[in-house]
């Protein structure tokens, strides 16, 4: 099934490989500001794709995925603060692994009860989970959520911080895309799509819906946590308010909606558009940028209700029809 999937999507794979090759060489000719915009794009694209594994493929829209950004960041931060290893890089790697594992473990524990909810009930329950995690981080002294944690500096002396974290984001986002692709073309992915279309029928036809949903939830949470940990390191100092942010949760949905829900390339395009718009085009404005962003978002959703991918498909179909 995987080999078939690779064959069917070979041009997408080639495009992704070329894209990552370009990304890898980009810091050589970009300004530091552009590299930081690149970081934000990679972070946003990764989050959108990680959310898509659950929200896009299985149709379980989470409004609280920031829970895993915060959980991963604070578990990694607390570990690195209290258990420094030999070198800063080793400490960061160990903290990242532990933070990601914590996200996997916690999501596995809450998956069964919370995935019994559907639709808006699941979405709101996840919002609640993120609030609870934020409160816990504030109130458990080991996390230092209120006072903040200084993430250990793992940047090699010979490298600019934005370039170092840019490459770390490239790696984390590549991993996220790889996992999402594997899910999409595997039996799990087909199962998730059947759940999205009609969960009861899928179960009746023998799809192990509980197991598949739990897998999607755990993978999505772990990858979100991983990206959150990299983000925390790139910031250097985090408080609860830096990482448990409802706008993170909502932006993941916006990226997927803008680009095309249920696709992998959709959140990537959506995040590219949003980051370019908010950071580059409207970044200098002091007080009207939110209004313009909102107005443009509404316009895009009205013009392309199936996202940029859907819009492109429609244009291609029209082009093919015109030529026939």
């Amino acid at each position, binding site marked *: 099934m995987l080999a078939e999937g690779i064959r069917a999507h070979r041009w997408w794979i080639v495009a992704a490989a070329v894209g990552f090759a370009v990304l890898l060489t980009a810091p050589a000719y970009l*300004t*530091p*500001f552009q590299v*930081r*915009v690149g*970081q*934000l794009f990679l*972070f946003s694209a990764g989050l959108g794709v990680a959310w898509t594994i659950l929200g896009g493929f299985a149709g379980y829209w989470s409004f609280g995925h920031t829970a895993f950004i915060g959980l991963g960041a604070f578990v990694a931060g607390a570990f690195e603060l209290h258990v420094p290893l030999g070198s800063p890089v080793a400490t960061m790697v160990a903290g990242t692994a532990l933070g990601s594992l914590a996200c996997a473990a916690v999501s596995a524990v809450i998956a069964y009860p919370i995935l019994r909810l559907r639709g808006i009930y699941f979405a709101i329950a996840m919002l609640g989970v993120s609030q609870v995690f934020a409160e816990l981080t*504030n*109130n458990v002294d080991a996390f230092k959520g*209120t*006072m*903040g944690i*200084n993430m250990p500096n793992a940047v090699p002396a010979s490298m600019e*911080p*934005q370039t170092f974290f840019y490459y770390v984001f490239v790696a984390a986002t590549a991993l996220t895309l790889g996992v999402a692709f594997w899910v999409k073309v595997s039996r799990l992915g087909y199962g998730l799509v059947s759940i999205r279309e009609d969960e009861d029928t899928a179960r009746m036809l023998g799809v192990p819906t509980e197991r598949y949903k739990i897998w999607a939830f755990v993978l999505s949470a772990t990858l979100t946590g991983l990206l959150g940990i990299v*983000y925390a390191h790139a*910031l*250097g*100092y*985090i*408080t609860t*308010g*830096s990482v448990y*942010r409802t*706008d993170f949760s909502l932006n993941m949905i916006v990226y997927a909606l803008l680009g095309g829900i249920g696709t992998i390339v959709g959140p990537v395009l959506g995040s590219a558009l949003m980051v370019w718009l*908010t*950071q580059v085009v409207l*970044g*200098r*404005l*002091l*007080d*009207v*940028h*939110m*209004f*313009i962003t909102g*107005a*443009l978002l*509404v*316009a895009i959703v*009205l*013009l392309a209700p199936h996202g940029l991918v859907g819009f492109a498909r429609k244009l291609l179909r029209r082009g093919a029809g015109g030529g026939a």
Partner: protein
Amino acid sequence: MRRFGRRDFVKTVGATAAAAGLVAAPAVRRADAQAKTIVFGGSVPLSGRAAETGLNVNNGYLMAIKYLNEEMGGVEIGGEKYKLELKMFDDASDPARATTLIQRQIDEGVDFFLGSFGSNIVLPTAAITERAKRPMVQSGGGSDQIFTQGFKYVFGMFPRASRQFISSVEFFKAMSPRPKSISVIFTNDAFSKTNAEGAAKDSKAAGFDVLEMYGLPEQITDVSSVLASVRSKTPDVLICTTHDQNSLLISRQMVATNTNVPLLYQTLGPQLATYRETLGKFATGICVQIYWDERAPYKDKFFGTAQKFAEYYRKHVQRPIAYHTAGGAACIVTYVQAMQAAKSIKTEPVRDALAATDVDTLYGRVKFTPEGDGDAILLGPAVGQVQKGVVQLVHPAAAKTGTLIYPTPKWSEKT
């Protein structure tokens, strides 16, 4: 009637975007056309969770720049006249956005930076300006971590959080009769917790007996059990390192349960008219930390006095003046005086001049520690006490507008 179709909608949105572009463009052109202009860059949160205070900070920056340009015709540095220009952007209370856009300003050659509000934004942005060796003077981040990184180019108008209680302990020491014991009520947030830890540490060091430390959740709804403990073990001074609403709740429950202490001292709350109106006569005698008060006899080279700054502000802005506004304005006047002392607008001499700064401003006497935060005594909060419904400054002696009432009357005896 013709329907408002999709094309009309797109036209409307396009026209709005174009209009916004036209609004923004002249600012850029004006900046380019100005010769000898000093640009101050940086971010402020004008949207998001910190927007309320961000607006106050930004108003301080704006008013100081406006005054220096329009009323004084610019500033003279090293024999040349300069206009000042503010190039702030909205970081939307988002540290990632703030760091990205600060980088853009560094790439574009902005040399002098002002700060955002909130340590979670100030610290990541300060790390970038520090690396680029560009000074940042800010009045929005007090976390200890900002001043313990070894930064050389970052200066704060406030003492670091753990030192913000030092001036209050000086007040306790100056009280007559001198109190012997204190207890502290704090909530689980950075401001309250750090202040409480500082209060306990500095009070102990000054020889006061710290009876109890009462920790409460960030949002409190009931303190009756804490007050029962206060009644059984009454301190001379009950310190509440709490925010406005929590302070009010504690005071009201103290009145309701007749919990009397010789002095109730709150970090925030009584400075608000609404707090004093709600408590009425019971507010009398409650002490509060005051970071800035326009009645304080602070002298300023440009504005003249703190009072005159406040008058100028009120002439141009309707929003009530806040101490963050004065702090923001003080960042600008401190920068300018450092540039004048350095006789240069190059970053290195200005940084050195900032490090050596010891000047009177509308915000008080500005002097930084070697780590860059404000001097704990000079820039630490003054102390006010509610007397006849008004807050009078009772400490330090240089800022006094009233005499301390101590011990304060019991709740039942207040008139």
